[in-house]
């Protein structure tokens, strides 16, 4: 039997869990951990802020499907993780966070850098642990990884008292976990599947909503089979983007507050909605009692809590999509739904006429920038978008055809997510081309991570959609708050000179004609590069279903005036 210190137990166990990379910042309460880290084959990415460490672990998890790990010291290190953990929690991302805690003897005395991080993170973690006995450490780490990655994934935090890291234990890593209160849903009964298939077969205007759950379950192939066998059109949520290629004729794209008009029309006109791994977020449904009023709803999810939480289901099917879909598809009849498809095509072409990218304009509009990136990369990238208008333009104008090809903070909408999450994604997928689209506001929220990009030699391409505003809020002010731009005009630094100070080449783009060349230059650059696009300042995201409104009151894109 091996005698290990608590610190060694942590790394030994992580190695056994298959962890190769961690993201963190050291400090007094994790100094034992860092002291023994060089003895293990784990790459430590030194971040510049613990929030970024949590986002990086999250981005790593979203890009690879593996558990992402971050580490921080007690007190401020731990509290800095909070936003990142909440982000991962809302989007069901498997993350394990390790924090140091003050020594057991002084816990509860307001010791230097003591904070009750397990108490603080109860509502934003799937589970958490405070470790005060080294004997329990191996089991806790085993459980933490098991809980983070199984079922509906989520972040788990392990807070380890400093003395526990130094104490010795006879190391045994348990094979099994014993968690009597942790039940994973079983397989749905054949009769439930029969019932679902019958509802699908009887529907005239069926529509699938694909959510993040499809991607988390790695059920993309199974979804494609269902869609093609049943000829069922599909819309996605923001996080469901990539569940089915947006180039597929049956994929209408993202629905909801900023979904294309035809996606929301389809939702309102469907007679059957099959929701797969989506939780009917209010950004998708708008006013809940107005949502999909003509439709019966089949709700398929792994988490019983989601059933009937906001939108009541006519049929609930609980379980893993990766098992359910292959069992369901053979029961679904091949139906053309030609009338329904024709209607959708009509709505779609009507929308396309209003597509602002198709309009002649000499102005540097963000939609054009996103289109150019898509064309230059042929969509063969992992896009990491931030939050705000930039996030919506990216979602609308980039044609995502890849799996795990878009990473974004959906549930929490965390500005500052993109750059650190891209660091995680690029570290986990060194052979991928990782791009960031970000606003001038959100970029300044984790801009310090440019240093990490350089230190880690990551070839990340950063496209700032710089409108000089906290743009999404400005848009709301313009549309709903008398145009009073309170607290939204935003001064930024010269991002290119700043990037150069970090050692990253950059280019400022002010003219539409310069967009293509700048993007091509980035594609051809081996290392990182930053593009600062000075876009039209008061461009809005359309269409928009105003908060609390129904689809019929959608604010459409005004027809652009030719200049």
């Amino acid at each position, binding site marked *: 039997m091996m005698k290990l210190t608590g610190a060694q137990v942590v790394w030994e166990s992580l190695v056994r869990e298959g962890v190769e990379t961690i993201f963190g910042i050291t400090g007094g309460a994790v100094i034992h951990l860092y002291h023994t880290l060089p003895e293990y084959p784990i790459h430590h990415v030194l971040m510049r802020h613990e929030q970024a460490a949590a986002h990086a672990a999250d981005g790593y998890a979203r890009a690879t499907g593996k558990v992402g790990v971050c580490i921080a010291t007690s007190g401020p290190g731990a509290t800095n993780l909070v936003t990142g953990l909440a982000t991962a929690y809302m989007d069901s991302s498997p993350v394990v966070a390790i924090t140091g805690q003050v020594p057991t003897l002084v816990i509860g005395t307001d010791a230097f850098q003591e904070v009750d991080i*397990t*108490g603080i993170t*109860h*509502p934003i973690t*799937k*589970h958490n642990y*405070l470790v005060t006995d080294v004997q329990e450490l191996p089991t806790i780490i085993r459980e933490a990884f098991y*809980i983070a990655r199984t079922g509906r994934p989520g972040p788990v935090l392990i807070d380890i008292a400093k003395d526990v890291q130094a104490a010795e234990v006879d190391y045994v890593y348990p094979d099994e976990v014993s*968690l*009597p*209160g*942790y*039940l994973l849903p079983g397989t749905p009964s054949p009769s439930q599947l029969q019932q679902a298939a019958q509802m699908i077969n009887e529907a005239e205007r069926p529509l699938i909503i694909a959510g993040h759950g499809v991607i988390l379950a790695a059920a993309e192939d199974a979804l494609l089979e269902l869609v093609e066998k049943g000829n069922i059109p599909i819309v996605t949520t923001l996080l469901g983007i990539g569940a089915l290629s947006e180039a597929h004729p049956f994929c209408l794209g993202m629905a909801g507050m900023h979904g294309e008009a035809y996606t929301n029309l389809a939702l309102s006109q469907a007679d059957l909605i099959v929701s797969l791994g989506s939780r009917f977020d209010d950004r998708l449904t708008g006013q809940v009692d107005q949502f999909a009023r003509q439709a019966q709803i089949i709700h398929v999810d792994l*988490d*019983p*809590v989601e*059933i*009937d*939480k906001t939108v*009541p289901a006519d049929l609930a099917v609980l379980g893993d999509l990766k098992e359910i879909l292959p069992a369901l598809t053979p029961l679904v009849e091949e139906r053309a739904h030609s009338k329904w498809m024709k209607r959708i095509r009509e709505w779609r072409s009507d929308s396309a006429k209003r597509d602002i990218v198709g309009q002649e304009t000499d102005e540097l509009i963000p939609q054009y920038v996103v289109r150019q990136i898509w064309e230059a990369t042929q969509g063969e990238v992992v896009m990491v978008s931030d939050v705000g208008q930039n996030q919506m333009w990216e979602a609308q104008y980039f044609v995502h055809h890849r799996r795990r090809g878009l990473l974004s903070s959906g549930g929490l909408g965390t500005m500052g997510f993109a750059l650190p999450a891209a660091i995680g994604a690029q570290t986990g997928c060194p052979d991928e081309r990782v791009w960031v689209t970000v606003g001038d506001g959100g970029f300044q929220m984790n801009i310090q991570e440019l240093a990490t990009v350089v230190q880690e030699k990551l070839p990340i391409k950063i496209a700032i959609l710089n409108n000089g505003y906290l743009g999404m809020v400005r848009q709301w002010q313009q549309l709903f708050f008398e145009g009073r731009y309170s607290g939204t005009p935003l001064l930024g630094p010269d991002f290119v000179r700043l990037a150069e100070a970090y050692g990253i080449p950059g280019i400022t783009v002010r003219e539409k004609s310069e967009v293509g060349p700048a993007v091509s230059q980035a594609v051809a650059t081996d290392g990182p590069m930053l593009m600062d696009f000075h876009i039209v300042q008061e461009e809005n995201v359309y269409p928009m279903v105003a908060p609390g409104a129904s689809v019929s009151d959608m604010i459409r894109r005004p027809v652009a005036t030719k200049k």
Partner: protein
Amino acid sequence: METHTLIALMEDKPGVLHRVASLFRRRNYNIESLTVGHSETPNVSRMTIVLNGDDRVVQQVVKQLSKLINVIQVLDVSDQPAVSRELALIKVTAGPGTRTEIIELASVFRARVVDVGANSLTVELTGPQSRVNSMIGLLHPYGIEELARTGRVAMVRAGNGNALL
């Protein structure tokens, strides 16, 4: 809105009570009472939760509670024949003129006098919540100086299936 009674079994681990309480607060559930103590199984605590809400809310509470890793099982026993009891200690003003009256009243409710002071009596009553309520109501005019109630504990009657675990 009806009153529901839930029974939950949970691992007796640090922080479990906080998790449950924090869940109720965060999800805005309207809890009337919550009691917790040991169960027949070592290291397993048993909680009785009384809450108000329509069926959909109660369903959510059951599911959200079950989702906590340390919570082993949750049962809504509202529709089952169950024994449900509450204990109350009531210190009531009792001068020479009212003392006998109060003692008689207590005996009607099968309550016990557990402490006698110069100007007060302390009465202990165990029973269904309705009985506790009506006794408190009747004692009110005498002057209730102190009141301590445990909240409800409940158990499904024998032979009605759905036993826990």
